[in-house]
């Protein structure tokens, strides 16, 4: 999987979780840039990413991931 493919699939996951087709992601996107990305939606997002990319995000990463770039790095390292 290339970074561009991961990015494209991840954008679909975000749009689905947050019910917002206008979401555009870049590596620097954080929870502050997406209105509904709060502690309530964070784990929903993590579970949706796990389902899409068929891997388990370690709990330590769930807490420390700072932006979309770090999420894509993790997907490329562990995802399918």
């Amino acid at each position, binding site marked *: 999987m290339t970074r561009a493919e991961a990015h494209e699939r991840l954008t679909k996951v975000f749009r689905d979780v947050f*019910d917002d087709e206008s979401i555009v992601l870049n590596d620097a996107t954080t929870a502050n840039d997406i209105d509904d990305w709060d*502690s*309530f939606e*964070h*784990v929903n997002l*993590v579970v949706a990413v796990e389902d899409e990319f068929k891997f388990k995000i*370690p*709990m*330590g990463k769930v807490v*420390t991931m700072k932006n979309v770039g770090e999420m894509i790095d993790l997907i490329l390292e562990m995802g399918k």
Partner: protein
Amino acid sequence: MFILTFDYFVFLICLFLFYFNVRKHQKSILFIFSILFYVLISISEWYKILLIVLYMMLITYSFGVLIGKNNRFKSSLLLLSIFLLIFPLIYFKYLNNIIVLVNNVFKTNFIINDSVFQIIGISYYALSAIGYLIEVYWGNICCDKNIINVGLFIFYFPVIVSGPILRYNEFSLQFNTNKNLEYDRFVKGAFLMAWGYFKKLVVANRFSIPAHNIYNNFEQFSGVTIILATLCYAVELYADFSGCMDIIGGTSMILGVKLPKNFDDPFFSTSIQEFWQRWHITLGLWFKDYVLYPIQKTEIIIKIGKKSRKLFGKRIGKRIPFYISMIVLWFLIGLWHGGTDYYFVASGLVPLILIIITDIFSIFYNNHNIYENKYLNYFTNLLRRFRTILLVSICWVFVLASDVSKGIKILYRIFTKFIILSNFHIDILRKGLNNINLTKITLVTIIFVLLCFFIYDVFKNIYKIDLFEKIFIIKNRYKVVIIYLLLFLIIFLQTMNDNQFIYFQF
């Protein structure tokens, strides 16, 4: 109060040694003085406290090393270490309160354990220690093989009695190099300390007078007056706790360690969720990272989420697992506040109900309206802020009443005797000023503080200027003038009616 008594001046001796005597051993000096400070402020016999110190240090250090070895038993080791760290907290802090609660609710006769003694600050440093072990377990940090480092992290004296709850990675990074005494940092720290003392001795203590006096005789007052008393208590609690954090933050700043923020103007929150994100931030983040997220990520909660989405649709279904996690979370937060019935209600049940109700409302109602006119925007947000404060005040009713049934009676009176027309003027003018000991100086202080709040708010939200931050970047000589001004105001306006910080009890 420890922080306002001579005990705290151990700090001055520590400071002298820290910077001027044996700078090569700054960590050791701070560690020794932290333990000394803790023993000095403790009410129980010193040897019992030393045993607790040794116990907590050894458990955290040794389990940190064992978990860090990445062996196949590390999950069991983590669970065991959490149990061992929580055990003294439950035994010494919560057990008797829980026995009283169970006896009251189930009419049982369990006997209270007389052998327990008070351990100050254990609810704060136990959480810091558990957080450290969880981070080692997750692999986010390496275990520390120096027991002094671990001991200093748990018992660092500025934070030992009231937090904030520390994160090991943020704290240890600041201790890697020896520190020089910097004039700029010293003045900033002293300013923050003076500001904290002003908040506690002037603001909190003055606002507490009408709040407590009205609550002591609430049957005589109308609902409006009781609401005003509750709002006074809200200011008292905020000034008390954030003042304590400023004194602690200033002390630590002088020692070269920046502490995490524990408050972010909570009274300017436009929603109840936002309020809890801006109030006691380090506690909220601790529970979010180490309790809420792990619960939400358990297999059973994920399965419930998937099933409820199928049954109720995505929008409602995804909320059900979140609400289940929130029930566990707020139960634990209620327990953390002492496990008494009224703290369970005030710090657990009421916030939980408010958050769930407002979240359900948010499905149907958008709270993010932004108008083009900045004054209209400000006014709308002002109303939202006022609504948030009123809702949060329901929690404070129970804290101030210190009794669930009294709290319910007060709430009932607020709604049923909102305004007593015939007595209203008497309430405010005669009883208000005489019976509740609301002297002119207290009244003037309250009006002055509220005016400052309003000016700060207008500048921050309309002109996007943070006046407090501005004071931090002015030249040091002006800062020193402000410190003297604050000390002058403290001397003339302070009232020593209660010098115990409210959050010391937790």
